[in-house]
């Protein structure tokens, strides 16, 4: 059973539906203690880093304990950013801290919008839409996903580009689209909204959880 953590940041429905479509068994723990039954843990979410405040000490401890027992953890979008130490979006609010670094706002105005023939340089923030993955290395959650695969993003902040990055994406700057360190992984995009590529990544995670 995969535990899907509900902290009221966005809509769980689509993640639940995608997991159901690949035949995964899912539960939404009502109390932190229930995380102990999880074969794997998914922290979804979208929106402001401040929303992770709802994941208080008890939730953090329960998730860290399960990760300590080598159960796989996947953070999606805001859930990925939460795996890091902090975010400029909500200074002073700590993340889970399993991965090193601070999340930062995507740089604006530094890239070029090829759709424009006015010669004006423009990178729109938030970054919304389908963009491609450039793999730096192989990882267990990305098995079968080809280099250049396109996935759906919607975000304004990004995780730092560190040694944990598995794949990068460009939007004004190059940022970490997928991270993995041992059995802890994160994706900045929404696999539940990324068609077959996204379902493949979720299936890989569910298989890791066993």
């Amino acid at each position, binding site marked *: 059973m995969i535990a899907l953590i509900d902290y009221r940041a966005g809509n769980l*429905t689509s993640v639940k539906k995608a997991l159901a*479509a690949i035949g995964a068994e899912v539960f939404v723990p009502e109390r932190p203690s229930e995380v102990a039954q999880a074969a794997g843990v998914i922290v979804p979410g979208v929106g402001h880093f401040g929303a992770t405040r709802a994941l208080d000490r008890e939730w953090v401890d329960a998730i860290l304990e399960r990760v300590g027992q080598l159960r796989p953890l996947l953070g999606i979008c805001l859930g990925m950013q939460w795996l890091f130490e902090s975010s400029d979006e909500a200074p002073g609010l700590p993340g889970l801290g399993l991965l090193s670094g601070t999340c930062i706002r995507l740089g604006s105005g530094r890239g070029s919008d*090829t*759709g424009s023939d*006015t010669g004006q340089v423009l990178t729109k923030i938030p970054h919304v839409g389908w*963009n491609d993955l450039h793999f730096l290395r192989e990882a267990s959650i990305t098995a079968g996903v080809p280099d250049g695969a396109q996935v759906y993003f919607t975000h304004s902040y990004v995780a730092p580009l560190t040694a944990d990055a598995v794949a990068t994406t460009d939007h004004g700057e190059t940022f970490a689209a997928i991270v993995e360190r041992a059995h802890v992984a994160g994706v900045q995009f929404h696999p539940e*909204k990324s*068609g077959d590529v996204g379902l493949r990544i979720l299936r890989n995670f569910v298989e890791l959880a066993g």
Partner: protein
Amino acid sequence: MLAKRIIACLDVRDGQVVKGVNFEGLRSAGDPAALARRYNAEGIDELVILDVTATLEARRALAGTIRAVARELFIPLAVGGGIRAEADAAAAVDAGADKVSLNTAALADPTLITRLARQYGSQAVVVAIDAKRKDGRFAVYARSGQAEADRDAVEWAREAEAHGAGEILLTSIDRDGTKAGFDCVMTAAVSAAVSIPVIASGGAGGLDHFADVFTRGRADAALAASIFHDAETSVRALKHHLQQRGIPVRL
């Protein structure tokens, strides 16, 4: 590179997809779930379900339509038409919508944008602007093009962004259903005025209309309905055409 999105719109009334010309004269074009499935197989990037009915009974039927589409398609799904308050948005989101599109209700009370953005995140709140050229400006209309709102589209788009909108869906009433091409001038004016993505709508009639709106019109996405429903243009053929024109697309 961020792909330019191709979005198919399903105008749904009484559980059937319908399409009008210049916002009137609706004709039936099929079962929404079946159409959605076909578009997904052809590589559509996103779907919009627009409720063009107003009765409570039809609204309940719409939730069933949203559910049927969201159960099997794993691409972004927006729902608009008749979203007047938090409860309407909650019903759409609960049924499986990723985004809600506000129009008349946002004009009447822009704080609805903010309240929904706080609850679901800005990425879930699309502000739809229906506008037509009038006296050298882009006049905004409410109530499906029936009531002039005494607003300019550029100014209203900026205000919607400030209130927390995540995207603008800009429809040219002049071009809607005409297949005469998107209003690239209006789209470029709005796109340049905001930093959030702008979806161009109204007037798609051929492959080059899309290329035009992504270049001259500076649109981030383009939405069409009848051109795809009637299978005049397949999504795949459109994307290959755009790719040949050097426009980034998802293939």
